[in-house]
């Protein structure tokens, strides 16, 4: 196999994985969730975003990073590309994961919700997205 082809296939595979990891997940059913997605970079961490819809017209947005260290992470929750919430957190649970839970308003039309976390030490990037119609 020519090296050029190998390179092309490798890039294609990497792009495919990346696309999978960062893909918008159109969810149908209850509750909408991104599923568990591997984080980007040199990482063994995973990320998951779940949206619980309540009767009051609010989303209960839960972002979880399944980490393998106790580094400090900066995180953001975006609502239709607007940063609704952000902060920093250190995974202290027994399994070294952390969980961010916030409320968002179910706006008219489609709601695009993103949870993004960056390890400040290793620059691992975890991103999950859920679109709620």
């Amino acid at each position, binding site marked *: 196999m020519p090296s050029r082809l190998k390179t092309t296939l490798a890039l294609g595979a990497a792009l495919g994985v990346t696309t999978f990891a960062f893909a918008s997940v159109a969810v149908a059913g209850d509750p909408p969730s991104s599923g568990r997605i591997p984080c980007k970079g040199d990482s063994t961490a995973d990320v998951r975003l779940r949206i619980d819809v309540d009767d*009051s*017209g*609010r989303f209960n947005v839960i972002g979880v990073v399944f980490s393998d260290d106790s580094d400090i992470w900066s995180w953001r929750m975006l*609502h*239709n590309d*607007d*940063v*609704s*919430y952000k902060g920093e957190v250190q995974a202290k649970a027994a399994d070294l994961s952390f969980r961010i839970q*916030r*409320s*968002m*308003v*179910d*706006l*008219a039309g489609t*709601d695009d919700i993103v949870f993004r976390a960056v390890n400040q030490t290793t620059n691992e990037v975890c991103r999950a997205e859920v679109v709620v119609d």
Partner: protein
Amino acid sequence: MLRTILRTPVATFLIVAGVVLASMTVVTNRAAEHAAQDLGISARIDTTRLLTRSLLEPRLRDRLVEGRPQAIDNIDQRALEIGGDVVRINLWRADGTLVYSTDLALVGQKFELTPGEQRVLERGGTGYETADPDSPRNRASATSVDGLVEIYTRVRSKENGRLLFEAYYRLDDITSRREQILSVFRFNTLAPLVAMTLFAAVMLQLLTRQVRRASRERERLLRTAIEASDAERRRIARDLHDGVVQDIAGTAFTVSGLARDPAVPEASRTLLESASDSLRDGLKSLRSLLAEIHPPDLRAAGLRAALEDLTAPAASAGIAASVSVDGVEDAADASVALVWRVAQEAVRNATRHSGASTLAVTVRATAEQIVLEVVDDGVGFDPSGDRASDRFGLRGMRSLVADVGGELEVTSAVGEGTKVRMVVSRR
């Protein structure tokens, strides 16, 4: 019994005082309700201002005015912290877009602002109105607005964008606050009034008793005076009748006898005849005077004679008087006395004022009634004149007759004489 009680001054006072107190209660309640409601609303206005100052304005950015999701999520977080009396909050843009509402389904929708809301949004200040369940914004809401009041005020973002903050409160909370204020107000206002009314009623009762006692005493004295006067008149009449009248009657009889004696010279007989006539006229006048001074002891049998004595002065005044009495034999003495009294007044009027040439006094009786008529052919009078009844002194008689259930009617016209007609029960 009840009617008698109601006619007492104390009952009248209590009824009037009750009406006045009830009116005052209604009026003061209205005023107090307004005051209490204003107070209740005023407390909510303060709450609304506090919410805007402490919760909203410090972190309000134009992002919310623009309806950005981040700003909506943030304001929603803060709105969730609001509890207490606030049922719902709205944030309006000037174009009527609801940039935020705790009723999240309405976020982003556009409605027409009320004139009060527009005014506050333009000029600032605070306004309030009762929530209208039929307005489009409230019809679209899942929250029932029955019994809610909306209080709104203008808020500004850091970038000077304007929004209208609106909070909904339960009216029944305001009403209960109003009732708390009212209950104190009612007691403080009405209790002293009721106490004063009762005190006044007791005082009035005591005064009424005193007045009644004095009245009874005065009545007793008056009756005693009348009885004394009556006794005196009776004594004078008896003395005159038994003394002077008898003497004059005897003298008239003697003089009349001498006037017819042939042994007496003709010239003397003529003088004696004249003297006899004068004595008889004097005797008649004296009898009429006696009847005036003291009415005779009237009984049915003596009514004719008594009426003839009454009309004697009329004859002296050149009036041809006639008396006719029929069918009163077993009539009650009180009825007979009343007939005599009314006849006395009517005859006196006719003699003094009528200028009549004839006067007829007629008494006739049926099985149930006695009818008296005194008719003259004098100058008469206009019964519609202001003082027609007073002028002829019959008003007192009229009330006397009415007291025993009888009727007294005076018929007259100028130039056509006068007729006095009385009907009383025979018993």
